């Protein structure tokens, strides 16, 4: 997905990619990667839990909006245990 993200950015489309393995993100270097601490198969945390899914999506959106970030931007997602 990182390679696809890079091609989209080269054509003017802003991207953010969820990433399940930080080491892969560091090697591939997609423009913006939100590294989540979830198992493969669970990229947005939990099924049938809109609040948890929204929390991951919002963190990804925040990366798009953060003009301080520099490429490659790799950010660790920290789940909110109270959700």
């Amino acid at each position, binding site marked *: 997905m990182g390679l696809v993200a890079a091609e989209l950015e080269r054509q003017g489309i*802003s991207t953010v990619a969820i990433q399940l393995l930080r080491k892969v993100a560091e090697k591939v270097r997609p*423009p913006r990667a939100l590294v989540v*601490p979830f198992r*493969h198969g669970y990229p947005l945390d939990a099924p049938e839990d809109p609040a948890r899914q929204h929390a991951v999506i919002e963190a990804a959106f925040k990366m798009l909006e953060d003009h301080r970030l520099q490429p490659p931007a790799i950010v660790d997602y*920290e789940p909110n245990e109270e959700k």
Partner: protein
Amino acid sequence: MRLASSGFGSAGADKPSKGGLFKLGDLSEFPIKYRLFLKTYPWRRIDPVPWVPLQKPLKDCRLTLISSSGFITADQAPFDKSIRGGDYSFREIPSDIDVAGLIDTHRSDIFDHSGIRKDPNLAFPISRMRELKKKGRIGSLNHRHLSFMGSITAPGRLIKKTVPAVLKLLKDDGVDVAMLIPV
């Protein structure tokens, strides 16, 4: 910083690693042959890294989803699991799809498919995006989204053949932002 979650997605939830915590970037959830493969795989390094800052607020942007979870709709051909190096084709998923109708055809057996089968939003969050559009967090949803099957070990054809077609579609659609979700 916390490294564990009590949620469904946390590996610590049912398969605790050392200390009961799932470390970011940990490969311990995989069988040994996959761990070795992932450690030795020659990942392509993006260099230089392209960067497009948002050109306008998200509330004015058109967004598309790109998922590598291998979802198809009922009237689409499944991804071809026999192609060496992985099926590099894609499927268009209409934005008004009934999410319950998405079918998981991902070939990989190294991850637990039960979550995305129970709720495809877990890897293709179209319901969440509709909610965000309704709230005004994003401007609009593109009328189509894209589904790939991940685990492509030979990405050359994906980049040379598939991505140019994808780019044309998304540029024609006036897409500003893409959110990419693996599985």
